[in-house]
């Protein structure tokens, strides 16, 4: 094709690919190093943590870090609280979001587009702007230091999810829904039998992303939760970081932080394909 012969191009390509691969592997090491170091620090002895020259892998791995942290820190209750919050919100919120997306995409409703645009405008308002009034609201009804302020506002649905599912439903022809209506199906039946199976993959992807976001949230939980046994996992490990740093128990801090990452990491590795596709879709379809 070009002036160079094809053998030369192929060889050149292989050379470039080799170089690119080397750079990528080096970059991957940098990306993963802090997390690996987190793990190896967790199984070091306290002496090894501060040893000079640094210890990369401990002589005798202290696996008991992963057992003693459950009794020495409120990690178990942190897990429980995070699961309660993220679980309730995503399950109930996904149902309300998909019903709303169905109505906004496929049903007749006066001022439908105005309603949708109104909801979308909420995305422009940063949480810090409304967090103080929300906090005062929940303080007045005595919900501070409970999980309710983290759960209740989100049960009303997730605008990003509604937006995403509505886009998805745009591709479903109106005639199918009309035909079902003429056949006498109720709207809940149409939703359950026709719409839900159609949007299930989209819901699943959004569900996982939302679960991750709530699991990893830190700002709202730290405002509301004071009592140790009521804190979510992120607040628990952040407090451990302060408390155990003074005792120089870095293995425990790193172990707990590592364990806090694990559930999402495992979910990600299992559902990698769906998550990555969904993220790419959200970003490129804006």
């Amino acid at each position, binding site marked *: 094709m070009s002036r160079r012969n094809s053998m030369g191009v192929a060889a050149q390509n292989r050379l470039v690919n080799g170089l690119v691969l080397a750079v990528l592997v080096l970059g991957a090491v940098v990306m993963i190093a802090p997390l690996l170091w987190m793990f190896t620090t967790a199984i070091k002895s306290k002496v090894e943590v501060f040893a000079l020259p640094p210890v990369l892998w401990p002589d005798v791995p202290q696996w008991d870090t992963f057992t003693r942290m459950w009794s020495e820190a409120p990690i178990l209750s942190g897990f429980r609280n995070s699961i309660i919050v993220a679980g309730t919100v995503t399950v109930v919120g996904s149902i309300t979001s998909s019903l709303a997306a169905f109505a906004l995409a496929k049903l007749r409703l006066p001022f439908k587009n105005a309603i949708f645009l109104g909801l979308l405008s*909420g995305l422009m308002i940063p949480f810090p702007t409304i967090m103080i*009034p929300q906090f005062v609201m929940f303080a007045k009804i005595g919900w501070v230091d409970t999980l309710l302020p983290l759960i209740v506002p989100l049960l009303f649905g997730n605008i990003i999810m509604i937006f995403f599912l509505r886009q998805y439903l745009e591709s479903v022809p109106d005639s199918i829904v009309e035909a079902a209506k003429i056949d006498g199906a109720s709207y809940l039946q149409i939703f359950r039998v026709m719409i839900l199976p159609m949007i299930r993959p989209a819901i699943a992807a959004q569900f996982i992303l939302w679960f991750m976001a709530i699991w990893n949230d830190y700002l709202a939980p730290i405002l509301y939760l004071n009592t140790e046994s009521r804190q979510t996992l992120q607040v628990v490990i*952040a407090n451990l970081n302060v408390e155990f740093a003074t005792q120089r128990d870095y293995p425990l801090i790193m172990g707990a932080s590592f364990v806090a990452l694990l559930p999402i990491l495992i979910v990600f590795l299992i559902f990698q394909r769906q998550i990555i596709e969904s993220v790419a879709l959200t970003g490129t379809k804006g």
Partner: protein
Amino acid sequence: MTQTTSISAPPDEPRTAGPGRELTPEQRAKQANRRLHKSEHRWALAFVAAPVLGFLLFTVYPVVFAAYASLTSWNGLGPMTFVGLDNYTRLIGDEYFRTSLWNTFFYMIGIPIGLVLAMLLALALNRKIPGRTALRTIYYVPVISSLAAIAIVWQFAYNGDFGLVNQVLSWFGVQGPDWLANTATVKPALIIMAIWKGLGYSMLLYLAAIQSVPASLLEAAALDGANAFQRFRSITLPMVRPVTFFLIVTNIIAGSQIFTEINIMTPTGGPEFSSASIVYYIVRQAFRYQQMGYATAMSIVLGILVFVITVVQFRLNRRNSFSIE
């Protein structure tokens, strides 16, 4: 969608029904239709009720409340004393607010650096390289990791004596500083960490966009003698512009709300407040010093900033030939 609004638009109805009593069959059908649609309206309304109610209760009301509270002197519990624009004038003179505002802008230096790196990464991973799926996964792991855990490990990594960063630097004979304890290094340290955390996300979006560039276009350009760099600059780069735009907007909005890493890694706001961000300062004023009125004024300023940035960017983007569909 257009047919929906014409059917349900109420102003049309009285005009077509008119003053006359006799209804044409057409009009009678229309009325029957309306009766039918009434139940549809009711169901649709029931389905959207939750998000609408949630929006009014947890967004609209708090915004209105914040707007008023920002004009008062208030500790969150006691009475709200109306003070006009006092909180806003106080903001202008507040050295800490100015510093945290400046810091927040400074952190955004990381955005263009991150985007360039992510683009290079996406181009590299778009090549037929062995193990690219595994590599893509590794680069994405920091994205899904919780920021709190990440902040904890990086705080430790930046430790001057035994942190990972200085250990690695010492292999090259460099004596690193105590990163988070120096005014000169604390912000770059946080920026490096933020780039590391977000790289995989931008890389993924760029990769998806690059793969949607039509191969025929690139081939045609190659036949015309365009080299790889020319093809990238005149075809790939313009084609992925919507993604760049999306990433810039979302990164600036997220960046203006940076809090978690600041609060965990530099709980006092860093040396001489040099790492404190706006949200960090808001949280401190509101929840530690009970200056709710004053903190709300700051949060309103933040909200206006985010709004203006978004609007300006969408205006700018409209002028581009490529936009988000």
